């Protein structure tokens, strides 16, 4: 939903970043207002995931220039955990396994940490159990999720659902969902998309990082950005995604090179 007067959540200007000495982002600018759904598309290696990870504070990504503010605060002055508490979220493309830590325990710690930062009520294990089970029902997640170690031995689809469960629990103001559709079959995709749609409100925003148009049949974006060579080279509405589907990415790159 686009409203020109909606509050600006994220403002990125001319962001450049490198990983292991290699420049990946070469001047990305993006403005995200409350209530909006953005999709960032582009070929492999174009810098989509790097963009999301650099903004949430992954230690492997070094910001070389540019700026980013979140609700007016300089993001790069905040540690990764502070950005999360401020309301940023990343749904990982490849969620890491954490053996020995029960998912229920992890989810509750995350929930209470975020609640604490917002001045909300923290939940004891019993209260949290009721709360999380409700959320799990909506996402069609088996109760055994809670007892298992975080992501350990999860299938690709289960890992993605666990990310969306965290999204539902933490209710961030701005969520990056990195290739959340990959590894999901069509039924799972529908459930996950329904879960995401339910979480979109006028007060928050979502940035989908995706390779394929498929997910956008279920979550309709207000803006579609094409990333190539570490820059956003084209921005359009939801129809751009369909055009990309039929024509591929090469023409966008060619157009950008010509401009």
């Amino acid at each position, binding site marked *: 939903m686009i409203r020109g007067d909606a509050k600006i959540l994220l403002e990125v200007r001319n962001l450049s970043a490198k990983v292991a000495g290699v420049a990946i982002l070469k001047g990305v600018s993006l403005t995200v207002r409350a209530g909006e759904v953005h999709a960032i598309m582009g070929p492999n290696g174009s810098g989509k995931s790097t963009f999301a990870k650099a903004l*949430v*504070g*992954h*230690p*492997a990504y070094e910001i070389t220039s540019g700026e980013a503010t979140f609700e007016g605060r300089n993001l790069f002055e905040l*540690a*990764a*955990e502070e950005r*999360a*508490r401020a309301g940023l*979220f*990343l749904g*990982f493309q490849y*969620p*890491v396994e*954490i*053996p*020995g*830590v*029960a998912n229920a*325990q*992890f989810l509750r*710690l*995350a929930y209470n*940490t*975020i609640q*604490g*930062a917002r001045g909300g009520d923290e939940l004891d294990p019993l209260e949290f159990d009721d709360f999380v089970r409700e959320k799990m029902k909506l996402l069609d997640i088996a109760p055994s999720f809670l007892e298992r*170690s*975080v992501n350990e031995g999860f299938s690709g689809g289960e890992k993605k659902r666990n990310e969306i469960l*965290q999204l539902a629990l*933490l209710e961030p103001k701005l969520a990056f969902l990195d290739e959340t559709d990959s590894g999901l079959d069509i039924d799972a995709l529908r459930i996950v998309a329904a879960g995401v749609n339910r979480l979109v409100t006028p007060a928050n925003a979502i940035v989908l990082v995706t390779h394929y148009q498929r997910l956008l049949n279920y979550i309709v974006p207000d803006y579609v950005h094409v990333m190539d060579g570490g820059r956003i080279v084209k921005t359009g509405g939801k129809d751009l995604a369909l055009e990309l589907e039929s024509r591929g990415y090469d023409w966008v790159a060619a157009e950008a090179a010509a401009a």
Partner: protein
Amino acid sequence: MSAVLKNLIEQPYRHGFVTDIEADTAPKGLSEDIIRFISLKKSEPDWLLEFRLKAYRHWLTMKEPAWPNVKYPKIDFQDIIYYSAPKPKAKLASLDEVDPELLRTFEKLGVPVHEQKALAGVAVDVIFDSVSVTTTYKKKLADAGVIFCSMSEAVRDHPDLVKKYLGTVVPHGDNFYAALNSAVFTDGSFCYIPKGVKCPMELSTYFRINTESSGQFERTLIVAEEGAYVSYLEGCTAPKFDTNQLHAAVVELVALDRAEIKYSTVQNWYAGDEEGRGGIYNFVTKRGLCKGAASKISWTQVETGSAITWKYPSCILQGAGSVGEFYSVALTNHRQQADTGTKMIHIGPNTRSRIISKGISAGGSNNSYRGLVQIGPKAENARNYSQCDSMLIGSECGANTFPYIRVQNQTAKVEHEATTSKIGEEQLFYFQSRGIEMEAAVSMIINGFVKDVFTQLPMEFAVEAGRLLGLKLEGSVG
């Protein structure tokens, strides 16, 4: 939450102070004269002096073991003080007469020496350098028929019991450090649980090394008669010195028919500084004998201290159907070295053993599990399950597993599982991206890793142990 944790983690070793107390100290060095001096100081009977001298003469013929996976400069056994005791002001009749400086020391350490202030349900024997300072709840225990006192008192008041069992599980010539201990041991705890008695409270010994360049050589003996049960806890600390101190203890456990002994240790000796200067050499022999049928001995240890740890709490499963258990968390950081594990010796039929070992290495430390599972020819249907997991924090540390398995009976079933994992940047970032601080993340991962062992600890100890792990990992990530 995070500020509290940070404070906790940034605390230096809390127990590193020295108590300025007048001590009665033997000259450095070891000889038959020193042994006679110790024996005389303690007014021991002749048979015990003989035991000591026999051990000493045997020790002279022995060589320091070179097989552990640890490195340290050669120990000069003539440069160690073998006896150091706080000088009593007068003969003590009650705790009120104990040197207040000494009481303050233990208060500072959080050790309950006053019964009225004590943790409900824990009796404590407090050992300072070479001697026992006090034992709480003696009367209540005596009413149940339980004897719990210092080894010196036991030699004086219950000589027959001590004579009957001392050296029966760890003989005087068992190994280099056990022989040394047998020659010069100064004090320790003695527990005796009579037939059919379930000890009404947890028994606990708290060890404190105070004098610089003194060794601590305590000897603990626990005997559980038929059908008896006891849970025993051991805690240790030492001041910070730049020199190394030697701790060579011997612990012997004897469980008769259907008796059960649960022995828990939370060890927090001074581990040396970040460059590896100072710290305790912990070379300890701990062994339990499941002598009777259906008896059970369970070792639980949380090893966080010591510059070097070298110990293998073991069970000899002699009685039919007896059970041995070993649960261990060994954490090493900075330059610490640990070579620790267990031995399960199955002799009787239907004996069972279980080994759960969790090694955590951080900094530039080295952590080895070394364990033996031996199934003798008569151990029909013996069972063993071993699980050895290692966790690495950072890339400068090392973890090794040395399992030895010897099976001489075809009906035996022996299982061994081992894993190695690493706390990586990606895992920590996953927590951080959900708002969780790195310290809380590490603590949650570590607690998950050690859970199977910590559930075996008595409650108060489990809390203390969890806190300790956090302290010890100060600055090892990020």
